[in-house]
């Protein structure tokens, strides 16, 4: 099979949420001599297309969840090759993501996680009902460039500020960019709590994360 055909088939397998075929095609592409970054680019293209389709409600949450499984299965296969090559080691940045304490609305956070990973970020998912100290600790341990928090309720969104307060009290606020999102979160709220940005949906969250990492303030890691 031709490289181009296999690449197209891989993209198709991701879009169809085919968890079995996607890793096989990824492996096949590597065997054909494709660069690992060629494979990740194909995966990102497929996920970005799905993100756009979801925005228009042409596809729905289950479709994105199974596509994410297929994406992760394919990534698993190419991970070693990716680490072995210089270009592949250059991840865009590390993100720690979670839903704040007291809130169990996970769907939006999951979609943001998937789209960030598909765009080349290293993402650590802390799940839901995550305490402020846990966000701060995970960000420190993984030297995260970005802390991404989700809250779907006005009663829990205040917890986002708690995380920022912890970072400030530990003198580590400038080590991480903080992004926030979820239905009740507005730019005004993000400004009020001192976050670095907010986004209305997963595709825009990816654009925001990229924008923040290319702006001048250094982030990520050491105190």
């Amino acid at each position, binding site marked *: 099979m031709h490289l181009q055909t296999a690449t197209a088939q891989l993209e198709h397998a991701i879009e169809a*949420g085919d*968890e079995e075929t996607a890793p096989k095609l990824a492996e096949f592409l590597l065997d054909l001599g494709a660069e690992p970054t060629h494979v990740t680019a194909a995966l990102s293209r497929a996920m970005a297309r799905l993100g756009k389709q979801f925005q228009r*409600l042409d*596809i*729905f*949450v*289950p*479709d994105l*969840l*199974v596509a994410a*499984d297929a994406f992760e299965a394919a990534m698993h296969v190419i991970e070693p090759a990716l680490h072995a090559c210089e270009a592949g080691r250059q991840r865009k940045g590390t993100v720690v993501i979670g839903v704040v304490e*007291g*809130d*169990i609305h*996970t*769907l939006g956070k*999951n979609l943001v996680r998937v789209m960030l990973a598909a765009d080349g970020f290293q993402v650590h998912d802390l799940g839901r*009902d995550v305490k402020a100290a846990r966000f701060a600790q995970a960000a420190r341990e993984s030297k995260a460039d970005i802390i991404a928090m989700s809250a779907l*309720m*006005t*009663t*829990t969104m205040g917890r986002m500020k708690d995380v920022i307060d912890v970072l400030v009290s530990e003198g580590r606020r400038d080590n991480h960019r903080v992004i926030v999102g979820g*239905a*009740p979160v507005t730019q005004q709220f993000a400004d009020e709590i001192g976050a670095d940005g907010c986004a209305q949906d997963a595709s825009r969250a990816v654009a925001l994360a990229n924008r923040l990492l290319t702006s001048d303030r250094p982030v990520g890691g050491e105190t």
Partner: protein
Amino acid sequence: MNSRHRVEAALRGETTDVVPVFLRDLTLGLDVCDLTTPEVCAGGPGGTYDADKSARCVIETQRLLGHDCVVGSIHDLGLDVDALGGRVEFPEREIPYVVEPVFPTAQAIARAHLPDLHSQGRMPGVLRAYQIVAKALGDEVAIAANVEGPVTKAGLLRGLDSLLSDMVRDPAAARAAIDFAVALACEHVRAVLDAGAHFVFVAAASDGPGIIRPEQYLEYTIPGLAEILAAARERGAPVVFHPHGPFTQERFWPLVEAAIETGIAGFQFGENNDLAIAKQRWGQRICILGGVDIPEVLLPGPPERIRGATKSAIAHAGKGGGYVLMPSCSIHRGFPIDHLTAMIETARQGAV
């Protein structure tokens, strides 16, 4: 016309003196009575559920705000979860939430038995609260039995992400979870109607486009809704259906039609819907419910904006009756009371 008559007339599609208001306040009363969440929902230390305090919350909130319809108890989404072996967290001043679902694996569903709502878990307390509320308010005020919809309840028992993945990868497991959830919902319908509720409100946040595919809604939600309806019919009670999603977009109209064909009395539209379209398309066949968007309008306010949104909802859907003014979903502790008053007062002033 008293509040109960107003709501019942609207559900039959008839005209009313003023537009009836249903807040679907599930935990707001905890603030009104200044009680903590665990002392009511978990019954305090060593308890299960405090029926008396729960009923007091509902009754005092209704007396304070004067809305036409109540849910007959303080309600949370973990009412079945702990009875079946999952775990619910009860934060002091916030809303309870499920921390461990009941079915961590698809296999666990096959081994599960329906709980006895009259003797197990927190439901006996909830039923008792309904009885107290029915006795205190039932002649004057309409009482709704708040019951979760098929995918919504199954998602709470199985974990929604797992359920949605099962729908694609293991449809038999998804089917088993949903069948269990629907059977349980039907038990709720019977028990809560027997405890004094007047109609059934099917709360279905996870049953609709925005989350599931239209064909999954037709495959799982609609047959489940039909079963819930059959259980309500045994008691002669009407049913209102409230899934989330942009149903008034033309491509989703068939999903509303499918719900109407099951025989529902009313459909509550959530956020991102056009009530004028709903009224025009379906207002002759069912009662339309809905009105003020919670995240966009009711929570941020200010009251003046809420009054405007209320007037506009009534103007679009109130004409000719068959309309109940509601927020776009449920109301909880932490919501500003003056925002709710602005909505209710505006409805009281407006002629239909």
